[in-house]
């Protein structure tokens, strides 16, 4: 299916999803502000930490703020634009994929774009608020943060697709996939400049929080072509792999030999 057509379809889908998420107006507003409140409490924990320790291996409070802004922004964008990924494992196991399969559009895009979560707007708002409150408003910093948010969103979405797609081979992994995504989000909010080699390796492979926290924040501190290349190519790479893994799993689904299939 053509890229342009896919994009058109996705935008129509996103419009409908956002409309659905806003339809329960009070719930939308409530969730948005609750998320904001939630994040600010978490942020206060770091504030206390930095009151005691001025920096962690060179990262200051300003860097921590950039980190949180990018992390929450990226996650929020994913919740808004690709919220449907949360139900992916469940659809795979319960046969919910079927109705998507009989329609002539890209199945994965259709699924991940068919839900938009209100709390995502709360996350985006947090991101914006942190930028404003901590004075990260110069052009360079803001553009690097935006880049980090977009690429981070792609990384979050890709890892969610990959972990949920494990359902094709391992059966009901919805809770596990959810915990994995939560972990990824959590670790993207912790300073990643402190790790030793093994952990650093982990942070760029099995739990690519490094792509969301380390690289973008280092980029905010100082420009580097290498880091820029790293973030963008990392995001694109993970995005491509996630689609490949999903379609590999779909082939298995079509054979009917996955766990839990019934005649």
């Amino acid at each position: 299916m053509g890229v342009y057509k896919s994009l058109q379809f996705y935008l129509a889908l996103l419009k409908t999803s956002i409309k659905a998420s806003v339809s329960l107006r009070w719930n939308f507003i409530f969730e948005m502000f609750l998320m904001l409140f939630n994040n600010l409490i978490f942020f206060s924990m770091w504030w206390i930490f930095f009151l005691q320790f001025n920096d962690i291996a060179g990262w200051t409070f300003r860097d921590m703020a950039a980190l949180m802004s990018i992390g929450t922004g990226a996650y929020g964008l994913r919740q808004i634009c690709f919220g449907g990924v949360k139900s992916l494992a469940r659809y795979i196991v319960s046969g919910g994929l079927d109705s998507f399969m009989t329609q002539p559009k890209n199945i994965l895009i259709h699924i991940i774009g068919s839900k938009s979560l209100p709390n995502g707007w709360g996350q985006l708002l947090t991101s914006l608020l942190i930028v404003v409150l901590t004075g990260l408003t110069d052009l360079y910093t803001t553009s690097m943060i935006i880049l980090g948010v977009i690429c981070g969103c792609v990384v979050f979405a890709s890892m969610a697709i990959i972990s949920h797609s494990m359902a094709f081979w391992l059966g009901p992994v919805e809770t596990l996939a959810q915990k994995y995504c939560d972990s990824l989000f959590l670790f993207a909010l912790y300073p990643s400049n402190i790790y030793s080699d093994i952990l650093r390796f982990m942070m760029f492979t099995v739990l690519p929080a490094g792509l969301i926290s380390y690289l973008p924040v280092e980029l905010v501190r100082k420009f580097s072509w290498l880091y820029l290349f790293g973030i963008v190519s990392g995001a694109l790479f993970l995005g491509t792999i996630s689609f490949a893994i999903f379609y590999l799993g779909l082939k298995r689904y079509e054979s009917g030999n996955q766990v839990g299939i019934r005649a």
Partner: protein
Amino acid sequence: MTCAIRVEELSKRFDVRELSSGLVGTLKNLFWPNIQKVSAINNLSFEIKLGERIAFIGPNGAGKSTTIKMLTGILHPTSGGIEVLGFLPWKDRYKLGFSIGTVFGQRSQLWYHLPALDTFSLLAKIYELDSSYYQRRLNELIQLFELGPYLEKPVRQLSLGERMRCEIVASLLHKPKILFLDEPTIGLDVNAKLVIRNLLNKLSEEEGTTLFLTSHDMADVEQVADRVLILDKGSIVMDNSIRELKRKYIRRKIVTLVTDKEVLRLNIPGVNILESENYHFVCEIDLNIIPIEKVIQEALKEANLKDVTIEDPSMEEIIREIYGLSR
């Protein structure tokens, strides 16, 4: 092309993992899983012409869902030939998607918190419908299905019957050549069921849409389908028109007599008494053994008849008999 669906020697086998209960069983499954090969579909062959109205029925586990999944391209077969509207479903699923519609009774394609109209607009994009065509088509269907008052209400506020009508409209926007319906009237009250059946019949008459329906409700089968395929244990045990089915398989009639005698005693071979009390006499007559006139004659010897009703057994009984024959 007059052929909608062609299936030849179609087979499907699955690998199924067996589960055991209890602590020991659970641990055993973890390390030594027991995988069995199960044959879900065995050498299925049938042909369906465009415009036909097919009921695809069978007991649970017969393989109906598996067959539909293969016809719609969701599952690929283990062996055999399958062709839907000239396409190979599992290979050309995307292209086929433009020409088929699906209504799965237990799963909704309508967005729950939004009005049905929003889902329709999205579907117009999915099926790449030209906007003037979409408007015309939508108006046609709104009139046909009488959806006027429901379009702007969020789907969650609609009754099950209203929702089902919207569901069917959603599947018809792109004017599919074949409509696959899996339990479309499940959970609906009697009136709503009647409405849906009438609409499906109207659709078939006016647009020539091929209907492929599965249902456990025999009235759905009787009132909508003109041909029945009965599946049991992965094979077709019956493929006949409804009329033929009734004619061939049922050599029985149910006779109800209202007499002036409180209890009628008729002990004739070929007559199975179902009820005999309160001036009501109901029996089942085996036409292979004795003709109806003979039974009435014998009854007249015993009492005066105030009323006589002669009925065919229900589809339920016909099907039950066929299932019984196949075992």
